[in-house]
């Protein structure tokens, strides 16, 4: 088992527990507010547990084709969760999710066949073609632009705990599938694969930045932020692989390693963990705001700082953290990326990150500041428990990581 696998397993388990607990508090209130038909709670929890089980299966699958079976199963088990409330929007989101992801995963199966055939024949062209299909296929599920179209719909229509799990855990699992294929690529196609990943990564951040600037829906804003961060993660991974000296493609986490590879590996792991935790906090808080205001329109929510103090604090700090402000560990990882990337890429990524920062903080400030326009419907205080715990975890881990990094460099 490599370090990435063990970290993703731990992360997925923590997020599953957090979202399971949040579902327990969230669903009864959501059922009362939304009215209308909804899935029975038994089926919901069964699907949620099945979702977790298939993600663990995907992370632990012994062979590449078996991993394909597992990743496709994650789609099938999570799709009903998106249409928990049976509205027109959620049905559309579920249909798109099933069809787009299944076609993408179908392409990944085709790519898997090409790569496996290439492994027996040793033909470089088949390796290249296989990796292109795998990247497009699993990239669809990772939410990489231009294959991301299902993601904002599914993340905005699903109930909050499901959105959080989709964004925090599922995207990572399918990113992990790409890393496994990258590890079996021979040296002569390595730079081709890395460049393809960097291109998709930059494109994802660019797409996200464009659609975040004028976004009118705060859950969709978070969804685009996930696309942005998956783009950054893929870029970080490609940079690590470019510099990795040994051909075995294994990532090793070592805090004392101050070479560019060591720094970038640390940045990659920080980014994955911190993005997932912060995004879970944000989606859960967005769900609470949705319950209080019964709308996802950004303009309808104002003056949170007066009307809902606890939620306002979580929302503001969460958004500041996801933009990469210290003490969030995302600051360290994005700093690592910008320092180690080639100049053109660093400049481009910095410019795009600035646009994202401006778009997100504008929304956060306009929602938390000012006078409350509409009186929020009171929501139970229990909804704050899980996001607050995540908040404490984030601050403590961010501070600890920053301190550790500074200390290890000071030596």
């Amino acid at each position, binding site marked *: 088992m490599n370090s990435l696998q063990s970290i993703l397993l731990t992360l997925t388990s923590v997020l599953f527990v957090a979202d399971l607990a949040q579902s327990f508090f969230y669903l009864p209130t959501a059922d009362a507010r939304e009215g209308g038909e909804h899935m029975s709670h038994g089926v919901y929890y069964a699907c949620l547990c099945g979702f977790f089980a298939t993600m663990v299966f995907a992370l632990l699958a012994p*062979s590449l084709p078996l991993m394909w079976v597992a990743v496709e199963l994650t789609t099938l088990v999570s799709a009903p969760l998106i249409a928990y409330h049976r509205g*027109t929007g959620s*049905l559309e989101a*579920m*249909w798109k999710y*099933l069809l787009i992801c299944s*076609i993408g995963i179908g392409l990944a199966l085709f790519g898997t*066949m090409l790569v496996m055939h290439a492994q027996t024949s040793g033909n470089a062209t088949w390796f290249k073609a296989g990796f292109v299909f795998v990247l497009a296929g699993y990239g669809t599920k990772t939410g990489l632009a231009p294959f991301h179209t299902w993601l904002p719909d599914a993340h*905005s229509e699903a109930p909050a705990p499901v959105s959080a799990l989709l964004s925090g855990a599922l995207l990572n699992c399918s990113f992990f599938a790409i890393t496994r294929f990258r590890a079996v690529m021979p040296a002569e196609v390595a730079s081709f694969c890395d460049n393809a990943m960097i291109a998709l990564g930059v494109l994802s951040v660019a797409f996200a930045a464009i659609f975040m600037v004028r976004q009118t829906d705060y859950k969709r804003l978070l969804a685009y932020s996930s696309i942005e961060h998956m783009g950054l993660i893929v870029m970080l991974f490609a940079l690590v692989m470019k510099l990795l000296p040994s051909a075995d493609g294994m990532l090793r986490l070592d805090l004392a390693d101050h070479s560019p590879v060591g720094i970038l590996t640390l940045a990659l792991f920080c980014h994955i963990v911190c993005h997932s935790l912060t995004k879970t906090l944000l989606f859960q808080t967005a769900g609470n705001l949705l319950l209080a205001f019964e709308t996802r329109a950004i303009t309808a929510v104002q003056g949170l700082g007066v009307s809902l103090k606890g939620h306002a604090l979580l929302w503001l700090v969460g958004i500041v953290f996801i933009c990469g402000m210290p003490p969030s560990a995302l600051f360290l990882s994005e700093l690592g990326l910008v320092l180690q990337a080639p100049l053109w890429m660093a400049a481009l990524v910095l410019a795009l990150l600035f646009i994202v920062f401006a778009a997100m903080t504008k929304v956060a400030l306009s929602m938390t500041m000012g006078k409350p326009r509409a009186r929020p419907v009171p929501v139970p205080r229990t909804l704050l428990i899980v996001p607050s715990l995540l908040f404490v975890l984030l601050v403590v881990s961010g501070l600890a990581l920053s301190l550790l990094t500074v200390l290890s460099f000071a030596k």
Partner: protein
Amino acid sequence: MTSLAEILLALFLLTNLILAGTGRLPQAIRLVAAQGWLVGLLPLVLWSWPTAGTPPLRVWLVALVNALVKGVLLPSLLAYAVRKVQAKRELEPLVSFRLSQIIVFALCVASFVFGKCLHIAEAIASELAIPVAFATMGTGLFLICSRRKAITQVLGFLVFENGITVFGSGILMEYGLVVELGILLDVFVLVFVLGIAIFQINRTFSSLDTDRLNQLGDVHLLHPHHHRHA
């Protein structure tokens, strides 16, 4: 060289062409069922009997389960859905049936040209297998894009998946029993979940036309004056 495998693969192309030209859902489902049987039979036909002897039990089992799931189980599930939601025809495809047939024919020609360019002579069971696989995948994707009815899109996905399976059989891919059955399980569950979604869409929208499913999306944000939440 004409053999049973070539005839089977030619039949595959024929079903693709007829499928592109038909608007009657029961007939389309029967065609996809026929493809399911062809997909099931293909590994047995491509098996090199004279040199390798009788195929092991695993090959027989996979062929049988493939044919049963794709040739019987899934088509009857879809036929049940068609009866329940009382959808008989694909009335207004986005691309007319005649034009669809021409496009699918062009896809076949393109796949053969592309297959010739690839020069993948080693480890191929039949020369036709790779082009037919590409043509079938292309037909499936084309059907998904050009049809409105949710059921026809599911059929398109099945055709696409059949194309991938033909490719696997064509390059004599050996996964082992667990993976083969796992892939089939995935396809089965997918069609099952899509079937449930079809019922819900039909009940909520009183229609199966997927172009009603266009409320979400962010393209409006790119226009200078957008008023969607108004």
